[in-house]
């Protein structure tokens, strides 16, 4: 919206003198720069003359760019392409859908056969994108188009460097706020023959690119030029399978001073001989969301005083967050430990958490229950109100000591209000004939709501449920579901929680029978279905 010509003076009734130079400038500006402000009263004689002859005319091209964008954003890319062929004026105007998204689905929907030859499919994609963009280039380096989003999601390598370079230049010239270049190969193991595309960072930084607010890069190579000034207004950065040296990553984070959200997945560092550390002593003042998954680093050490949400896993050996006193939500996933037998697994995890001040905690763990464990953690989680554990359980426990770690955790979280324990037992669960051992503990004075899924007859599970039922003095509701709702996968975006239940597909009734979930339901009813719990307990 061009509000430059609208001032409060106008509202108070001071009319512009009819032949002032300002009006003349606005009139010329209208013709050559396609900017039109409706407070310009000089153009009205022209318009009303036209009106008298042609009542059905609607000079859409004279509207302020913001309003035209509004109309165009409601049309599809193809419909807008149709509008570019209406007349010379329309072609020259270079209008475009404000969100340009190019994926496999954009061009290869109905009319293409499964073109197995990758190279020709790539060439076709590139040609189609170029066909859409070519009319919008008024000169090789400038365009009048204004974009909100420019997204390319297709597997391409360094071979197509020239084309991709041009696309990036186009998107920055069009003042796109969100640029995504996701070149991840499909399937994930396939590597393009010529190597990864190297992003020309110099084209993304500098004064011309002050509009870029969000950058999403996948399967590319980032090399910082010597005089890199940062991407000034970048607020959100996402890197998937990006090759970048740790030092370059450090410089990148320090130079983008307004960065609020950082999401790094599968960080691949060129130097794999030794695992490096990402240590940034300077404050990252604006950083609020930090997600690091599968980053092969020895350690990260960051100073982010305004960090609100942190997601990480055990690919990193050590995590140090300095001064993150506002951290309210943390998610930790354990992948590597799944393969090794680790004593006191829960302890290790809890000690690794960079701060005990979180309010909401999500954990994805794998436990080997046949190893006797003891819990020694003493740190209290005094702010914890919500706890969600996705637990892969394997092994045959000799006793219920594996459960004591969780009992300990509950007792160290005195203000816990909601607990979700989702279990995925691996292996055949035999109903244990041993007598139920009671678990003693201290009262849990704030626990209101408990949800357990994947309830099974493994020794310890029912004991844990009884412990909660017996010690949670203000418990309002406990739901026990014997169906395994967790997914088999080990990535944190697959962490199950009750509010995201509709994103997960439950096992079929046949699978439920085969994996003993129906038997587990009977077991739950038998051992937990006591009269005293009937008001709060629901067995699904």
């Amino acid at each position, binding site marked *: 919206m061009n*509000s430059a010509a609208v001032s409060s003076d106008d509202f*108070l009734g001071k009319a512009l003198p009819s032949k002032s130079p300002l009006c003349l400038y606005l009139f010329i500006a209208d013709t050559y720069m396609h900017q039109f402000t409706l407070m310009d009263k000089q153009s*009205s004689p022209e318009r009303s003359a036209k009106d008298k002859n042609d*009542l*059905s005319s609607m000079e859409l091209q004279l509207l302020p760019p913001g309003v035209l964008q509004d109309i165009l954003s*409601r049309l599809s890319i193809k419909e807008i392409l149709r509008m570019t062929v209406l007349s010379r004026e329309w072609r020259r105007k270079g209008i475009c859908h404000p969100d340009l998204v190019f994926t496999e689905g954009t061009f290869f929907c109905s009319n293409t056969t499964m073109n197995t030859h990758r190279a020709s499919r790539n060439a076709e994609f590139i040609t189609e994108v170029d066909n859409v963009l070519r009319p919008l280039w008024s000169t090789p380096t400038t365009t009048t188009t204004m974009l909100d989003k420019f997204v390319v999601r297709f597997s391409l390598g360094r071979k197509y460097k020239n084309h991709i370079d041009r696309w990036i230049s186009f998107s920055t010239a069009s003042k796109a706020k969100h640029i995504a270049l996701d070149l991840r190969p499909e399937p994930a193991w396939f590597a393009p023959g010529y190597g990864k595309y190297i992003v020309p960072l110099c084209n993304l930084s500098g004064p011309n690119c002050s509009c870029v607010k969000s950058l999403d890069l996948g399967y590319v190579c980032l090399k910082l030029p010597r005089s890199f000034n940062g991407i000034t207004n970048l607020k959100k950065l996402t890197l998937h399978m990006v090759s970048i040296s740790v030092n370059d990553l450090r410089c990148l984070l320090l130079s983008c001073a307004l960065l609020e959200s950082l999401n790094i997945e599968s960080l691949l560092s060129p130097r794999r001989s030794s695992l490096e550390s990402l240590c940034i002593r300077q404050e990252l003042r604006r950083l609020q969301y930090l997600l690091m998954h599968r980053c092969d680093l020895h350690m990260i050490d960051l100073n982010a005083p305004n960090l609100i949400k942190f997601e990480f896993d055990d690919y990193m050996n050590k995590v140090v967050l300095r001064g993150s006193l506002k951290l309210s939500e943390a998610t930790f996933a354990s992948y590597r430990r799944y393969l090794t037998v680790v004593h006191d697994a829960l302890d290790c995890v809890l000690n690794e958490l960079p701060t005990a001040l979180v309010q909401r905690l999500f954990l994805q763990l794998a436990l080997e229950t046949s190893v006797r464990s003891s819990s020694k953690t003493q740190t209290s989680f005094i702010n914890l109100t919500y706890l969600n554990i996705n637990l892969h359980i394997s092994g045959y426990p000799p006793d219920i000591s594996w459960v004591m770690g969780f009992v300990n955790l509950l007792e160290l979280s005195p203000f816990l209000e909601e607990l979700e324990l989702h279990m995925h037992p691996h292996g055949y669960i035999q109903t244990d004939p041993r007598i139920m051992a009671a678990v003693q503990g201290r009262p849990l004075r704030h626990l209101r709501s408990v949800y357990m899924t994947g309830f099974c007859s493994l020794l310890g599970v029912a004991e844990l449920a009884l412990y909660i039922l017996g010690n949670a003095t203000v418990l309002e509701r406990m739901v026990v579901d014997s169906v395994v709702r967790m997914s088999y996968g080990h990535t944190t975006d697959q962490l199950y929680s009750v509010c995201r239940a509709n994103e997960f597909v439950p096992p079929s009734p046949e699978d439920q029978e085969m994996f003993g979930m129906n038997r587990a339901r009977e077991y739950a009813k038998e051992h937990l279905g006591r009269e005293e719990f009937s008001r709060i307990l629901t067995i699904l």
Partner: protein
Amino acid sequence: MAAAPSGSRTRMVTLISKGGRNFKMPEAVALVSSRSCREALDYIEYRGNNTMMIKLLDIDPKPVSMLVNFCNHMAAAATSAASDDAAQRMREWEERFLGDDVDQALLYDLLSAAISIQADGLIDLVCKRVAHMIKGKTPQEIRTILGIQDDLTPDQRDEIRTDNSWIDI
């Protein structure tokens, strides 16, 4: 409908259309509907009981009166409770508002008026209507609707035919 305070204390905002016709709306309504009014009123230190007058001398009386009508209706709807029923009634009212008697010239003038005082609600509604008019039409049909002359050069036609062959010019 929010009850306007009685007596001469109600501050009004007046839009003046072509031909000097005045259309008034209460200041509260203008503050809700028009971004420009909000910003302008921020700057004004003292007005006493003066009406703020906005000159839209460019625009015919009919679109301006429709604009004021829209603003009043939106402000009233905003105060009543939100419900599916209310949303349905709003949609029906909007359809009647931009009914069959609103031709394109009037639509465009209405859009101009809304843009002048940055009445986002009405801009949104008209844009929706214009997009709806363009959707699914061939280029020739769009040219008829918008009254555009087809003045493409033969070179440009060839270019389009090769680049984007699926468009029938």
